């Protein structure tokens, strides 16, 4: 073999693979070598490189290379096996795409089909997407494939596994595989023992600009603390005040009593005041007790609001404080009571169900563009078991009366021109927002039963809309891959959050209103700063589309539920998954934290509501977590099956009564 030929082959190879620097380096070296004139090349390598450029054999080479590599990985030592197996999937899809890119469609299909079972379990959705790729032009057109080819996959691997891999590839001269692995995979080699199997490092999710960028994003600082001056704090203060005034009163009373003793004639009056005081004292004591128990929330740091917050009317504030005082403390020992609202005769048309914070109003969004609102306080009267006892003081019933007089039990809101995909109540129950496939969001007044505003801004169906915890602001998520922040008084969005690679499917506010979280079909959850509109966290770990999100009341954690029935708990500060909650067998439509954050309720398409204990994981300290992988497993406390009713919506009331809603489906 001629030396020049070899050099040509090497250069051709490097050019083809885009190794520009190596190419340059080689050229430089060649030049220097030409000067010194000392040829010494391994003819073997040259042969291989030439074989590579031999167009006839390309698909066969890939096929052979991959199958060899695969059988080696499967027969490797158990200790390192799982790490090596992780390399297989990126190698597989890139082999496939390379073959396609070279135009061997039929061979690519054969290759794909012969090895797809290996990855079916973990990556079935990606495989379904890739299966459709049938020509080189599709690779360009299809965003998923395109971005796959643009970015590198990063895989954590221990030093020994890495050495094993490289050694094997060199020894067996699987040049194709070596090329792919060099080109597409970014190894993060770590010294020491291989990571444990349970470690979820084998997730393979695409993030716009690669994992490094995601890691960078996750370095940013976030203030997950609660708002200063929140109502709960006010409650605490109020409790303290009552105590103080009580003390003062007590002293006065003592004085009075002495006087009373002297003037025994006035005894009756003194007795009555004494009783009243006692009563007050009891109230204060309960208030205090609840305060001391709800230490989880008060323990969180305080942050200043970045948005100008709306002013809460005093009477509303009072009723909320009343609710907070009467809150039932939930824990793994005291599970919540659940009131279930079943939609019947929906004819498969119900798209969403939303329940107001006091449980008195239920809204259903239908595929016939209608939005229907039921006043459960009135319906409840018939059956005599109104579950919302005393909590519906906020809703005026007069206006809705005329609606029910027509023979309907609900109020019909008409205005959308496409299926209604989501609805949300303002925290005080006086407004209702709905989003629809007609790409608009509409604001309705539950007092006037009328449409107030139509917000146009999205270009595609709006999948989800959520009021902020303080009202006034709301966030929307759309098929146009953006999430937007709005305020009720402007018809233009305040912020547009762009960055997801696919539909934004769900959105949720952080407890302090400074952040929103979005879940997307690109299998990531992102956290955005409302003020700057920047992405501050990317949570990678889900294997399918994210359908529901919930934020813990103390602002530290977030739960996300996906299409496969998996729920993940995330620590916002670190951006890492605390623990996956596995138990549901189908889509998680809804998630909700109890008010003091000790329980998480999940509603699923498998017709169950599950209650999870989330206090345990939160309190496990870091070193313990490292010691034993099982301690941070959150546990399912209770599974509550419904009668063939998938659970569409969940809502903890301020008094910790759980409301759930779903449409009864016929058993096929």
């Amino acid at each position, binding site marked *: 073999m001629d030396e020049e030929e070899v050099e040509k082959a090497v250069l051709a190879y490097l050019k083809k693979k885009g190794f520009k620097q190596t190419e340059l380096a080689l050229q430089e070296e060649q030049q220097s070598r030409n000067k010194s004139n000392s040829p010494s090349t391994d003819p073997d390598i040259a042969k291989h490189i030439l074989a590579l450029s031999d167009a006839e054999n390309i698909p066969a080479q890939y096929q052979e290379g991959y199958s060899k590599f695969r059988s080696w990985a499967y027969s490797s030592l158990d200790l390192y096996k799982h790490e090596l197996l992780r390399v297989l999937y990126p190698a597989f899809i890139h082999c496939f795409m390379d073959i396609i890119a070279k135009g061997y469609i039929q061979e690519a299909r054969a290759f794909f089909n012969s090895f797809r079972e290996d990855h079916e379990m973990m990556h079935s959705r990606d495989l*379904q*997407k890739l*299966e459709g*790729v*049938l*020509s080189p032009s*599709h690779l360009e057109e*299809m965003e998923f494939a395109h971005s796959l080819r643009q970015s590198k996959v990063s895989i954590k691997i221990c030093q020994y596994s890495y050495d094993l891999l490289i050694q094997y590839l060199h020894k067996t001269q699987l040049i194709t595989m070596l090329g792919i692995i060099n080109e597409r995979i970014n190894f993060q080699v770590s010294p020491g023992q291989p990571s444990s199997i349970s470690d979820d490092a084998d997730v393979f999710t695409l993030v716009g600009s690669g994992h490094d960028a995601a890691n960078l994003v996750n370095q940013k600082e976030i203030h997950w603390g609660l708002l200063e001056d929140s109502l709960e704090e006010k409650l605490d203060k109020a409790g303290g005040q009552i105590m103080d005034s009580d003390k003062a009163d007590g002293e006065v009373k003592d004085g009075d009593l002495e006087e009373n003793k002297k003037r025994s004639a006035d005894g009756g009056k003194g007795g009555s005041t004494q009783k009243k005081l006692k009563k007050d004292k009891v109230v204060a004591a309960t208030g205090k007790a609840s305060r001391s128990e709800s230490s989880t929330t008060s323990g969180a740091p305080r942050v200043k609001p970045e948005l100008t917050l709306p002013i809460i009317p005093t009477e509303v504030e009072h009723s909320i404080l009343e609710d907070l005082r009467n809150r039932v403390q939930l824990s793994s*020992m*005291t599970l*919540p009571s*659940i009131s*279930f*609202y*079943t*939609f*019947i*005769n929906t004819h*498969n*048309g119900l*798209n*969403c169900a939303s329940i107001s914070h006091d449980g008195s109003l239920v809204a*259903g969004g*239908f*595929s016939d563009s209608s939005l*229907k609102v*039921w006043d*459960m306080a009135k*319906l409840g009267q018939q*059956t*005599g*078991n109104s*579950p919302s006892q005393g909590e519906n003081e906020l809703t005026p019933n007069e206006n809705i009366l005329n609606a029910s007089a027509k023979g309907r*039990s609900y109020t019909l809101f008409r205005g959308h021109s496409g*299926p209604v*995909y989501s609805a949300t109540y303002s925290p005080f129950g006086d407004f209702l927002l709905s989003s629809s496939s007609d790409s608009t969001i509409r604001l309705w007044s539950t007092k006037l039963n009328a449409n107030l505003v139509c917000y146009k801004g999205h270009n*595609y*169906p709006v*999948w989800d809309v959520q009021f902020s915890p303080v009202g006034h602001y709301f966030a929307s998520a759309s098929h146009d891959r953006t999430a937007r922040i709005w305020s009720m008084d402007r018809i233009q969005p305040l912020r547009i959050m762009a960055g997801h690679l696919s*539909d934004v499917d769900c959105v949720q506010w952080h407890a302090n209103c400074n952040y929103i979280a979005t879940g997307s079909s690109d299998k990531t959850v992102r956290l955005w700063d409302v003020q700057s509109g920047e992405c501050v966290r990317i949570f990678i770990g889900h294997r399918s*589309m994210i*359908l529901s999100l919930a934020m813990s009341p103390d602002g530290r954690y977030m739960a996300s539920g996906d299409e496969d029935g998996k729920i993940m708990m995330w620590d916002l500060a670190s951006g890492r998954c605390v623990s996956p909650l596995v138990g549901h067998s*189908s*889509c998680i*439509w809804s998630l909700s934290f109890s008010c003091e954050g000790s329980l998480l309720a999940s509603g699923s*398409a498998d017709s*169950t*509501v599950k209650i999870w204990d989330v206090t345990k994981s939160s309190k496990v300290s870091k070193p313990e977590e490292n010691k034993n992988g099982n301690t941070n497993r959150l*546990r*399912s406390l*209770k*599974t*509550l*099956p*419904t*009668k063939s009713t*998938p659970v*569409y919506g969940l809502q903890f009331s301020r008094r910790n009564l759980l409301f759930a*809603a779903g449409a009864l489906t016929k058993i*096929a």
Partner: protein
Amino acid sequence: MSIVPKETIEVIAQSIGITNLSPDVLPNIASDVEYRVREIMQEAIKCMRHSRRTTLTTVDVDSALSLRNVEPVYGFASGDPLRFKRAAGHKDLFYIEDKDVEFKEVIEAPLPKAPLDTEVVAHWLAIEGVQPAIPENPPPEVLTVPSDNGKTAYKEDGIPVDIKLPVKHVLSRELQLYFEKITELTVSRSDSALFKEALVSLATDSGIHPLVPYFTFFVADEVSRNLNKFSLLFALMRLVWSLLQNPHIHIEPYLHQLMPSVMTCLVAKRLGNKFSDNHWDLRNFTANLVASICKRFGHVYHNLQPRVTRTLLHAFLDPSKALPQHYGAIQGLATLGPNVVRLLVLPNLEPYLRLLEPEMQLEKQKNEVKRHEAWLVYGALMRAAGLCMYDRLKTLPSLLASPARAVLKSNAKVITTTSKKRKASMDNTMQQPPLKKLATESTMGATPANSLPVDMPGSSSGYPTVIGTADTNLQSSRNENVPESSGRKEMVGGQGPKTSAALTQAWKDDVDAGHLLPLLYEYFGESMLSFIPSPAASFFL
């Protein structure tokens, strides 16, 4: 290469008027078609998820198309999931049935019923974490499975978890209606087929637990007020029976309210019209009811059976009580099992029979009705004693030679219930001390019985069947046999001085049984023979 064959493309091209399509284009178009179809379906799946469904419908495909600004495919919309049929002869080819519809028929057909409007109903899915057993929730058997899993999970975690029982029941409208309907049926139309349906529903429905206190009160109330309405009483007892059958009901806490009414129906002096109504049936039925209650809850309510027995015995032994009351008491005691009969009825048999005898005789009791009653009581007594003896004798055959049993098993027509046998034999082992006492008692009873052979012809003469001479032979031969067998056993016992006390006790029982038979024979005559299990009979004959 692609799923869409190129012939399809060709056909479609021709159908829209393109005939000169070059064959090179076909595979390219085919692959692109597949790609686009997959793309649309992915969007359709998104739409399906956002419509909170797990079945893909044509509507989803339409909305996916409209997302791409493509005209939707019309004519396939349907509210329900499509029903696919498998094409004959193909494994994975499905189609939707599309029937030809006569236009005229469609026009002339009456307007279909308007679909029901959407409604929302509220119920408690859980109260403090416990699911109440109401019709809106799935039946308890579904519930128990996951809760078991939950319990094991607790164990793993090592955290004690106490689950509170439901504290509050909400009586829904449906349940109220149900209760009203059932009570109305019981009171007024207990003979209708509908009532039978209602009983079945009571015995099987899982959601009626909240109604149990109401039913209990209803039964108690109605029984106390309507002692002369026979059909109502019977209906009430059947209602109680059905409630007891229901596996989903936790009836225990209400038993103390229920028992007085039930006992009333068993031993009351008058149940319905004395002449026209067959209150005997009611008493029989109630006796079985009482027995089943004792059997099911006896171990939980340790004083339940003693109380019932005491009440019944009191009724039985009080000569001032009417004969129907005696009848009820005997039936009740008989259903409680042979041991009860042996312990309580048999010792009192002889004096009681002496009392009963004049009532049965034509000469002494002129009242037709009274005499009939007396005969019924006599029959009940005989049955009770006979079953008791049958049970005792059953322990014997185990000692008998098996060939004899095999031969004669075919004519075992009286062997009634095997479950009773097993239970009785269990009782046997458990009640050793009283048996000992009884053994002595019955032997004592046997001696006076032997001294009263004169009574026998008198009592049996009233019996319609005539006893032949063969019977006396039988009797004598049996009398010979019994001592012989017991003697032989005692001999064996003497031979083996090391035999355990238990064994001798068992033999004593056999001896006791041996004594029992002639005793009862003396009281009841030949009719007693039918109660002897055939292997034992073979032994005696």
